[in-house]
């Protein structure tokens, strides 16, 4: 009798426990400690601020290893090749996608989203910003790195960025200038400013040799209708659109602030913040800094407009995504963290701390718009974010560097633009040939 009672109590308790387990999908992972690798970046600083909330709700502890973003890639390359990695969840730079997926080092997310014990039915994938998902998350479709019928997701965008034009409202009003909507207007205003406001540069741009100059060039290439490759991987960077983009960059730098040819993104942003330039066309991640009165002398005087239009609207896509390494120890718990951070609730919480939203709904959130008035413009800009503004293929590292050093020579040594781009195209073709991209051509 006594025994039966105990058994019964036990069974009831077990049933109750099972009941709670069903109500709380996080219960099986309570007490797990996840090790995550995040970059030192404003968005991830914001994300780290909400991790306590995650631990409180789920009982899963999170340990963060934060690294400078280029160092992060080196470290991850090392970690991902080990039999057992130290990281359960990694944030990766968009151009690492090709390398990691190609080396089969990231978990395909399908099996997690199919698992009813893990996948939150209220996650709402459709709300995630298309351009970001395509650019950062999906691989295996068109050209290998883009979405397509055979593509699937290896990561979720988190800390993604697009480009917008920041300009000095006060200066523009003073001279009766409207914010530029096309490239012609942009270039005209860029060179008008130094005449109207002696000592002030038109637009601050990245231009330093290497990655920065390449980034700046590609930023203009897509809206002006150009691309690095055609559909058969033949370089077309040296066509009319390419020349127009290089000309645009040269005009911008020539009419820009003094010493602009050595600028990286931080120097360009600083030049704008200190009132030495009237415009800044780059990632939305810099906006929070412009509005911060402790570091910006132009806070409150900055207007935001969409990336001007060339022959089309195509702002850049970049930033980071979250992925689960193949050699992670706690993959399921890592998925829960990834899902939580990129859910509607998590995305908003991070955005309120100053992060960059990955969801359309977050950009429309009233609370967020009240705190950061530029959010609506950014949300609008995102609809034109171009996932294919730069190729994400394993050979990109050396091609990118070649474009960047050649552009730097155009900017500082007066190298002829057509000649420069012809050289890039020729070297790029050789690189692609060696990597086997023309194996299927006659």
């Amino acid at each position, binding site marked *: 009798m006594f025994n039966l009672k105990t058994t019964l109590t036990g069974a009831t308790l077990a049933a109750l426990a099972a009941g709670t387990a069903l109500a709380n999908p996080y219960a099986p992972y309570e007490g797990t400690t996840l090790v995550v690798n995040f970059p030192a970046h404003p968005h991830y600083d914001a994300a780290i601020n909400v991790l306590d909330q995650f631990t409180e709700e789920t009982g899963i502890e999170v340990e963060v290893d934060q690294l400078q973003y280029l160092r992060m890639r080196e470290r991850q390359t090392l970690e991902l090749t080990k039999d057992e990695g130290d990281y359960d969840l990694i944030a990766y730079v968009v151009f690492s996608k090709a390398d990691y997926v190609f080396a089969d080092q990231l978990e395909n997310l399908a099996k997690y989203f199919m698992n009813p014990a893990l996948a939150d039915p209220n996650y709402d994938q459709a709300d995630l910003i298309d351009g970001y998902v395509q650019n950062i998350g999906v691989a295996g479709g068109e050209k290998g790195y883009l979405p397509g019928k055979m593509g699937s997701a290896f990561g979720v965008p988190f800390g993604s960025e697009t480009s917008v034009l920041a300009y000095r409202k006060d200066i523009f009003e003073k001279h009766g200038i409207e914010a530029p909507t096309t490239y012609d207007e942009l270039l005209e205003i860029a060179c008008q400013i130094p005449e109207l406001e002696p000592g002030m540069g038109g637009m601050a741009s990245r231009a330093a*040799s290497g990655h920065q100059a390449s980034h700046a060039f590609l930023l203009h290439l897509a809206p002006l209708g150009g691309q690095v490759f055609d559909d058969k991987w033949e370089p077309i960077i040296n066509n009319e659109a390419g020349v127009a983009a290089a000309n645009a960059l040269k005009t911008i730098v020539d009419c820009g602030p003094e010493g602009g040819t050595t600028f990286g993104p931080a120097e360009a942003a600083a030049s704008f913040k200190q009132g030495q330039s009237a415009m800044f066309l780059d990632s939305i991640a810099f906006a929070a800094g412009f509005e911060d009165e402790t570091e910006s002398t132009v806070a409150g005087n900055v207007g935001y407009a969409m990336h001007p239009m060339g022959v089309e609207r195509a702002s850049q896509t970049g930033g980071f995504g979250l992925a689960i390494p193949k050699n992670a120890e706690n993959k399921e718990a890592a998925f829960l963290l990834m899902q939580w951070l990129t859910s509607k609730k998590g995305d908003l919480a991070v955005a309120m701390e100053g992060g960059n939203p990955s969801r359309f709904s977050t950009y429309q959130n009233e609370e967020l718009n009240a705190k950061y008035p530029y959010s609506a413009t950014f949300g609008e800009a995102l609809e034109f974010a171009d996932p294919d503004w730069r190729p994400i293929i394993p050979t990109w590292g050396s091609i990118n560097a070649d474009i960047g050093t050649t552009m730097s020579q155009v900017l500082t040594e007066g190298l002829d633009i057509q000649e420069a781009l012809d050289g890039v195209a020729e070297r790029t073709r050789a690189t692609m040939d060696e990597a086997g991209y023309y194996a299927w051509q006659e």
Partner: protein
Amino acid sequence: MLANANRLTPYLFLAPAILILAVALMYPVGYMIWASFLDWNPSQRIAEADFVGLRNYTNLFSDAAFLESLGVTLRFAAVVVTVEMVLGVGLALLLDRQLRGMTILRTVFILPMMIAPIVVGLMWRYMYHPTVGILNRTLKSMGLDPVPWLSDGGWAFTSVVIADVWQWTPFIFILSLAALQSLPKSAMEAARIDGATGWQLIFYIKLPLMMPVLIVTALLRLIDAFKVLEVILVMTNGGPGLSTEILALRISRTASEFRELGYAAAMSNLLLILLMVLTLAMFFYGKIMDARAARIRAEAEEAV
């Protein structure tokens, strides 16, 4: 039998040292040489990489960017070592005397050497800043045109040379000073009694006697100049264009940015060979000079 064992004893005692040397020195070098024959990207383990024979090396010689960077390195090394030798030895000759506060002065002189390269790079980068840097602000306040220190190819090269000369002249200075102070006083006195002027003393007595030390010093600096990385990385990151992209920087970018470890290893090997040739050349030059000196001495003795 016993004689044989005796002859082997030294090798037996040497064995542990040779073993450690083989593991600690030869293994990494061997690894690098092996890697230079592979098409190896960092996402692969070395065993998974494809063997491509000499392809990495043949590609190097048709790679315009590599050749340019090799040229920049040779020019950089030649210019900085020459300038530093002239300034360092000159300073040593000037300051080789009993002055009050000489110890403090010497310490101050060698301060630049003690600063971490990254800091040196940052410091000069801010001094060279186009608008807020001290150099351009001074030029402007004197009514002169600002100089594009880091934003023009030619100037950027000059700027990194200036920073390197600033940091490493003291190295040559202290070594030359030590050499000067250890020269035999008798030779100097004899020359003075024979009526040698100050300049003659320097050119015919001091410099020739210092030569062995100077050669080693120059060699050390040359090796260092070929490998300099951090200062230039921070100041220009190789730009504008490729104007300051020295070989060490190119190697580092090839490995981390272009993800071609095999190609980077091939470049490193070429750099290693280049440095070995230089070292051997210096070594043989020293041998030849020694032999010549010995012959002259022998002839002189015979003549007596």
